[in-house]
């Protein structure tokens, strides 16, 4: 689908260095990285805004490295949407069609269909300045999708939205993706996007891709301490959530149920910072806490801390200081109790297609 081969580009203070990536057809691919990692430049170079210093880009087996942006068949949605303020919503969406000299009535039909898909028909005559963030984003998506791009590039598309709208947009994105079958590459620093949407992720740092893989794989086995620290979370558990009194009871596909301070039900991803998991030799009874027995399967020293991976029915990572690890006398195979607060569990509704 999209294939990037040793791409390098330096622009202003940002750079992309020797990046190679492979995005599969119909995939939702997310590039994660701290600010200044070069994510936006990478995305803009894929779109053809900047010419790379070296390297090649292929889209659908066609080399597009030297093509003009308009010849590439990519769609772009920026963080601030960049809707043309002097055009109405309808004119914004039709912009690409007008450039391609598509007959007027055909344009209107396509725009109408796109408005229907994104439920923005009632906004057609308005100017972007009068729209809410969520509405602007849907218009920006419609404008990009109208040319049926082979790949949709999203630059931090959720960061300007409030959390409720963001959640709605996530399900919107996964719905659109199912309906249109568009391959999506998104950059973000928002982990919830990753859990809710991504099939695979890449971690970017200082212009380089440091790790690529299935989301759970990357979180479970960070390639180095940077990735581990950047992701910081350590535990992602997929499961089904039901209300049990005031808190949610989450039952993973494998392993015991645990509690989370949340009111989200249905298919969820629960995340838990590794440092919030406390290990002890004996059970640690408390009503607000989750206590799970497990077996140590791996001990990974990293700097002054140690990551201990347990098998508690599902894999569970705990972050300990070297000292407490020594005090607990842990080694692979030893049995321990893992304890964590229900409030430490972060619950994200799953909207991505399996």
């Amino acid at each position: 689908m999209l294939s990037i081969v040793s791409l390098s580009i330096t622009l202003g203070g940002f750079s992309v260095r020797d990046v190679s990536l492979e995005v599969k057809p119909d995939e939702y691919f997310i590039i994660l990285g701290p600010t200044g990692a070069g994510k936006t430049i990478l995305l803009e170079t894929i779109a053809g805004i900047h010419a790379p210093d070296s390297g090649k880009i292929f889209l659908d087996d066609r080399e597009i490295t030297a093509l003009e942006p308009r010849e590439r068949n990519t769609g772009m949605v920026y963080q601030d949407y960049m809707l043309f303020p002097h055009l109405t919503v309808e004119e914004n969406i039709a912009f690409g069609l007008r450039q391609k000299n598509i007959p007027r009535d055909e344009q209107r039909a396509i725009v109408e269909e796109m408005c229907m898909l994104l439920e923005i028909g009632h906004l057609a005559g308005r100017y972007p300045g009068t729209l809410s963030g969520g509405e602007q984003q849907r218009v920006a998506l419609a404008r990009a999708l109208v040319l049926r791009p082979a790949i949709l590039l999203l630059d931090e598309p959720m960061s300007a939205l409030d959390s409720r709208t963001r959640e709605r947009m996530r399900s919107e994105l996964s719905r659109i993706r199912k309906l249109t079958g568009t391959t999506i590459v998104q950059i973000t620093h928002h982990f919830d996007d990753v859990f809710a949407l991504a099939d695979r992720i890449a971690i970017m740092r200082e212009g380089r891709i440091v790790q690529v893989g299935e989301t759970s794989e990357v979180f479970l086995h960070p390639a180095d301490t940077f990735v581990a620290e950047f992701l910081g979370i350590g535990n992602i558990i997929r499961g089904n959530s039901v209300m049990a009194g005031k808190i949610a009871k989450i039952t993973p596909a494998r392993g015991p149920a645990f509690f989370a301070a949340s009111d989200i039900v249905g298919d969820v991803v629960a995340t838990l910072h590794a440092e919030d998991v406390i290990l002890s030799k004996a059970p640690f009874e408390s009503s607000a806490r989750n206590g799970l027995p497990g077996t140590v399967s791996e001990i990974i020293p990293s700097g002054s801390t140690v990551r201990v991976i347990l098998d508690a029915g599902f894999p569970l990572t705990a972050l300990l200081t070297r000292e407490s690890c020594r005090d607990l006398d842990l080694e692979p195979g030893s049995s321990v109790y893992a304890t964590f607060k229900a409030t430490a569990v972060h619950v994200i509704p799953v909207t991505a297609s399996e």
Partner: protein
Amino acid sequence: MKKISLALTAIVFCVISGTLLGLIIYSPLPILARSLVSPEIQFAILLSLVTSVASTLVCIAVAIPVAYALARYTFPGKQIATLILTLPLTLPPLVAGIALLLFFGTTPWGKALDNAGFGVIFTPLGIIVAEVFVNLPYMIRIMRSTFDAINPRFEHVAKTLGCTETGAFFRVTLPMARHGLLAGTVITWSKAMGEFGAVLMLAGATTMRTETLPIALYLNISTGDVDLAVAAATILILISLVALCTVEYFDRDVHVF
């Protein structure tokens, strides 16, 4: 403090409006009307309009690409270029005028132009040249700040939607810059209408030949014909007023000075 500052504001307001109003009502209305339709003032109005519109059009045509380049591209010597391009802003127009006079009068360049029929010195064409030279930096500055305020990502999106680089500029950036363009045009035009020093130096002050409104004012006041001078001044005041109102209205997102 409040009383003093408010009182001072009122005084300054009265002084300015009183002075200008005094000028406008200096001549009784019939005399003002007669002066306004006199052949000399009619000529001055027409010449001022033609030269100022022509010089404004040249300024727009040159300033848009130059301002765009300064706003969007990096190139060696950009800082020096910016400095030189905006130097005439603070240069006294008289100095600009004498520099132009020497350039067109003494260099082989200027002489070649003169021989080719584009005489600049003491001709109406010289008025346009002088006005462009003095006003171009204003137009460049205004357009540059306008383009600076427009996120280049608008063009990026337009390009992914099928625009060429030029297409993206004309379909997106220029329409978005329309307020700045309008403000710049009005300022440039009103400054051209009132340009005196540079025009005097390069085009001279020949009655009924290079006599723009400010030159008419100057010539008539020197010969003691106050009524004609006042007529010219009245028109210039009205033009300033219109220009200021237009700019105030469109200046919300443009910083002119």
